[in-house]
């Protein structure tokens, strides 16, 4: 062990800490960006031309915001919104500060994924619900979110996996977590084993998310 991982062996508590930080950043930003993205995705679907609450102004606005935010490379977004982050959190360093760019970076991506997932739902089913007297809110909760659930879960897996990737990039500006260790220790000090172990832990996380998500999506499909 010691010869294969000369540095990691002395850094076990740091790795445990970093793993926790990555999990924390992923989870918290997934929850907040999840709510934001889901809401945005639903508004996009509802306000789109021919949608249940057709509104070309809202649709155009949301569509442009989503496109704009998705076009900014994450590493630049990190730097650009640093003042905003400092204003919100008081600092730009650490896991909590990293949540701000993570949420802003990922929610438009998730919103688009949700929009795509809900677009797959047969418009005829929506029409049948309207014909039976359902209100737009009822259609959103009882038809869209229910019929689209397996695809929503798949979109969520994809988003969480991307999010894990983004947390490591946030490591570049001192967010903490596995990305931070891999860059600031493994890469900067030429301690390759640190980088490799950080990568392995991240791969394991990704596999777990993928596996659990696939299982859930399959179970919900009839």
């Amino acid at each position: 062990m010691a010869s294969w991982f000369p540095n990691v062996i002395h850094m076990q508590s740091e790795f445990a800490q970093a793993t926790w930080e990555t999990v924390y950043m992923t989870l918290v930003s997934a929850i907040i960006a999840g709510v934001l993205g889901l809401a945005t995705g639903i508004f996009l679907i509802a306000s789109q031309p021919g949608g249940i609450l057709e509104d070309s102004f809202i649709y155009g606005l949301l569509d442009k915001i989503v496109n704009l935010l998705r076009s900014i490379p994450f590493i630049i977004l990190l730097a650009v919104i640093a003042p905003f982050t400092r204003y919100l959190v008081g600092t730009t360093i650490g896991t909590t500060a990293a949540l701000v760019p993570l949420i802003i970076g990922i929610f438009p991506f998730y919103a688009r994924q949700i929009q795509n997932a809900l677009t797959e739902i047969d418009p005829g089913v929506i029409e049948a619900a309207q014909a039976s007297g359902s209100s737009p809110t009822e259609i959103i909760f009882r038809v869209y979110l229910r019929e689209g659930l397996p695809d929503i879960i798949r979109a969520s897996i994809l988003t969480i996996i991307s999010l894990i990737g983004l947390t490591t990039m946030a490591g570049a500006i001192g967010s903490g977590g596995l990305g931070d260790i891999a860059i600031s220790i493994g890469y900067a000090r030429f301690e390759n084993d640190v980088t490799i172990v950080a990568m392995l832990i991240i791969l394991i996380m990704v596999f777990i998310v993928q596996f659990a998500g696939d299982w859930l999506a399959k179970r919900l499909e009839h």
Partner: protein
Amino acid sequence: MTENIIDLKKITVEFKDGENQVQAVKNVDLQVEKGDIYGIVGYSGAGKSTLVRVINLLQKPTAGEVHINKQDLLQLKPVELRQARTKIGMIFQHFNLMKSRTILGNVEYPLLKTKLSKSERTKRATELLKLVGLEQRKNDYPRQLSGGQKQRVAIARALANNPDILISDEATSALDPKTTLSILNLLKQLNETLGLTIVLITHEMQAVKEICNHVAVMQKGEIVERGDIEEIFSTPKKKLTQEFINIATNVGPAVEKVTENPSFQQLTQKQQLVQLNFIGQSTEQPIISTLAKQFDVDGNILFANVEQLHEETLGFMILVLTGENQNITKAIQFLKDNQVRVKLLNKVDKKEVQA
């Protein structure tokens, strides 16, 4: 006179198709009596789907008035409109069931917005499934059912809130002939037992023939002909109507086959190829044998079909009359005198001889 449960006045529906303004429905009036089964026939693109969607305002008309059950739907607030829609059931060509819900769940769906408790909803949905003969399958999912079964579930769902009206939008078009018939019979039965008013749109006159009392024929956004079913079938005025009826009664294909057959294109001077349409009483008389006895004209039957429409019987026949020219003329006059519509087929222009 029975009241009109559906009363559409001067309905126009326009769509923007890119730069073009398309009129899908043009100034159409439609009245349907309570308890009636009303068929709307037309080829795809005729505007019939758009027109029936005006009945429950899934399609807002550009102009016109929509009175359903004495309510002016266009004046209703959204919440009132949704309430009104619960009384207008609708079934679709592709069933439109939710795949994430069980059969029971699908039928319960329209009841979710009512005040019924969970157990009351289940009870009502189970009753409805019994009515359409599918209570055994209530815990299955739609993908486990055949097309006909899915349409039965959709019918049960449409009936959940005891509607007065059922709109059927090409509901049998994706089904095989046997299943189509069973669905049509179910609709007929619901019409009789529940007093349900049914508006059935289809491109198959065959379906209309089975159950409708009235029919309207649509073309390019307009109703070109309408009337009760016997009248339309026996004396169609428009070419399009004729076309639909010929397909439904198999007369069209038969005429085509006969007239294209070389042996019938070279008939002798003493032969005449005719198509006869019998209505009501004339179907009950031994007309062909009368031709032979009285006019010395032999009839060789190439095609014959009898359709039963409610109380009325319609007969269709293609035959070759053989005899002296003047006798044939007399025979044809005799047929016309007996309310038989006669169409001469071996004239070059195949023009109908006016009665």
